[in-house]
């Protein structure tokens, strides 16, 4: 009788443990790593998260394909070419930082997804209260 009573919680605990182990495994294999350019080239794979800034705030759109082309400078100061083939972000020009998700092909980073970080809405510079920014 005693055995029956503890069976439920034990089964629950084992199942819960296995579930969490599976989840951690999925996270470890499926998590998207943030990398700089050197790491991205070394790692390979098609879901690299390349973080950096758009060089000189300049980008260009190929008028035949509609792809956005720009140069991305990572935190180590290395620059590479990026071709963004996915959905266009609404405000690329205002971006502080971008994260391009994709992979390297022949030295060019092909990005499928572009996360744009705009200047923080909470940022309060010591601006002149008599001038509108």
């Amino acid at each position, binding site marked *: 009788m005693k055995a029956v009573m503890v069976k439920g919680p034990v089964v629950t605990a084992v199942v819960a443990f296995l579930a969490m182990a599976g989840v951690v495994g999925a996270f470890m294999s499926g998590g998207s790593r943030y990398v*700089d350019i050197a790491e991205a080239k070394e790692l390979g794979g098609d879901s690299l998260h390349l973080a950096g800034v758009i060089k000189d705030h300049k980008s260009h759109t190929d008028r035949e394909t509609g792809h956005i082309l720009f140069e991305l400078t990572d935190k180590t100061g290395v620059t590479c070419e990026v071709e963004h083939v996915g959905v266009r972000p609404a405000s690329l020009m205002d971006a502080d930082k971008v994260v391009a998700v994709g992979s390297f092909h022949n030295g060019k980073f092909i990005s499928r997804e572009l996360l744009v*970080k705009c200047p923080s809405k909470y940022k*309060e510079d010591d601006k002149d209260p008599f001038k509108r920014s």
Partner: protein
Amino acid sequence: MNEIPAGTPLAAPWSLFAGELGKGSVMAAIAFFVAAFLVSLMRRDRLDRAGTLAFALGCISLLVAFGALTTLFVKDQFQYQYVWSHSDSKTSLAYKIASVWTAQEGSFLLWACSAAVFGLLTVRGTGLYRRAYVGTYSLFLGTLGGILAYETPFKIIPQLIAHGKTFVPPEGNGMVPSLQNYWVIIHPPVVFLGFGSLTVFAAYAVAAMLQGDVQDWVSRVRPWTLLTTAVLGLGIVMGGLWAYETQGWGGFWAWDPVENVSFVPWLFTVVLAHGIIVQTARKKWVGANLWLAGLPFLTFVYGTFLTRSGLLDKVSNHSFASMDGNARFILKIFLFAAIGLFAAVWFARGRAVAAQAVSDAPQDERGIHREGMYRYGMTLLGLMATVIALGMSWPVVTALRGGEGSAIKEPVYHLVVTWFFLPLMALIAVTPFVSWRAVDGKSLGERLFGVLCVSVGVTGLLHLVMLSTPFGVHLEPGATVAAPFGRHVPLALWMLVLLFSVVFVVVANLWRVVEMVRRSAMGTGGFVAHLGLSVLLGGLILSRGYERTSQLTIRPGASDSALGYTVAYKGATTKDFFDRNRKLEFDVTMPSGEHVTMLPGQYKHGDPNDPKVQTWPAIERFSTHDVYLATSAPQIMATEEPVAMTPGQTRDLGESTMLEYLAPTNNGKFGQMGAQFGAKLRLTVTDARTQERRQYMAAPSLEITPEGLMPSLPRFGPDFRVALVGGMDAKTQGVKVALLYSPEIYYVQLYEKPYTGLIWLGTGIMTFGGLLSAYARRRVVARQRRTAPAPRNDAPVPAPQS
């Protein structure tokens, strides 16, 4: 320091008083809460009334501070840093009020006020827990008051104070344009009302452990858990709708950390709401419920810390406040203190009391019974909440091992959450048919047979209807979704499975509603809420799974087609680029042939010399689907930067376009007023398909005028204009050539989102059901309190209800 311009008005005395009142109210609130906390520590019966009074006064003081801040916003008192930074005089009253919570200090105040409101509402019904409840609640609100006193929104800009007088700048900085949407008025108050109410459960759990009675509190807290489930759930859905209507990526939910931070406490609240039902009926889950009451609050504080700490900066679409170091430190201490205190109370008191309470619980029955179903459901839901909490913390977890850290994205969440989702849906469908008294599988099967048959039939029918053209979803042939172990399954099959799970829940709960409604209409709230949840989930699943999207390239006067839609650009509604109501007008021809005008917003703001562009998507709603159209700023520059050239030079501009600088031109003397000099250029464009070459000539020039060099902007073939930038190098006659698209190019992202209407419908049904069950519970509690002063352990097992 900046000089204050002459004629700047002085701040009105009342406005300075309002600021002082706000600041003073926060201080007063802290004092009242400290007093209430100390009184509760003294454990004197005759002082308890005073403690409760101090608590109530503290809550009211916070509300006064909120009122003062709102007044400053409404009356444009820009001498206050917080008001100046987030509001301006031109916005409407509703936006001025909403500005209060668009940044950190104000949202903390909103959180405190919402918790205060719930404190005032609940304190009367706390009975024997009053003393410990007031003490715990005061400790929390007092600490929050401390953060508010430190990060005060009532600070006057120091430069504005001169010779003992305070001046008011004429205009504020304004609300961030991307927030200027009606949802900013509705969503934050609702979601913060939910967050504030989480304190109630945590304070009750601590009070129950300290008081030593771990049974009675559940019936008191039960209506509040149901209310929170409804209100916070509504708030979260509103956040999704807000994202959909404004963000331009065509989705409701992206598993972004900010979204998860509100979702995890909600999931734990739902687990608690069910745990309380089990405890009420079977006197079990006593210890678990104490923890479950703490978890929504603790995970919310943890999430707040996570999102405000800057640790997730790269991961999220949201921009976060990096709080300043001191405030972050306070929040961190607050987080660890909250978790530490809760755990300490548990180990010191709660554990022993709970163990004793469980010892006289009835034994498990054999067979299938409602308690077992709840156990599975709560375990699954609790695990799912833990998984999501782990997912949102993953960047931090992995960063701790060194390196940049990694993030969990939508596909991984979907892959993982599915394992919890499908069994949970099955439980939500089956449990209403299982009673507390155990039954065997056969009789349950008989009970469910009809429901299953109807569900299979309805699913098949829906699938057929949806695949038929007029109502339909358009499946890309061969589309697949990622499945575990690196495999892929056909999208259509997977959607059929998900659709069945949704339909099964709807049919089963509707079945129970029909069975019960005549006996007890009030008792159907739970079923209605689950039904609504399922409809909502169905909307999310169908609109995401069957979504189609494509990018179009559109020039004025021309059109582009994709997904069976043809889109043409008609022009802007106004020539004023800085008009907030400026819209772009697109004529969209639907696959049915119907014409619709869609008006995505696009305007400039900020410094006129370096403006930023704000865009809003346009949504056209039909009964079966939404057409969603998002644009970005038009493309004008054809080259990244002006091309430097000298005479005779040829440059390849890419995309089969060659530019030649044939010869310099000039008219008049270099350096003389009215003189023109320029460059004769030739453009050669090769058609990518036909390989046909076309050549165009243009001679852009610069004229010396009293206002400086004025460039001409001649046409350069059908697609371009051209201008010279800067001057001409006198020695080499080199120029810089800017090639511009004329007309400009618009890039449009078009989405077709089927059955989004179900999201609105489901939200409505779910909220109604949740509020109904909270109200019904409240009446039960009130009745119990009237008839029996101590509804204790001898209460009969209630009738099955969800």
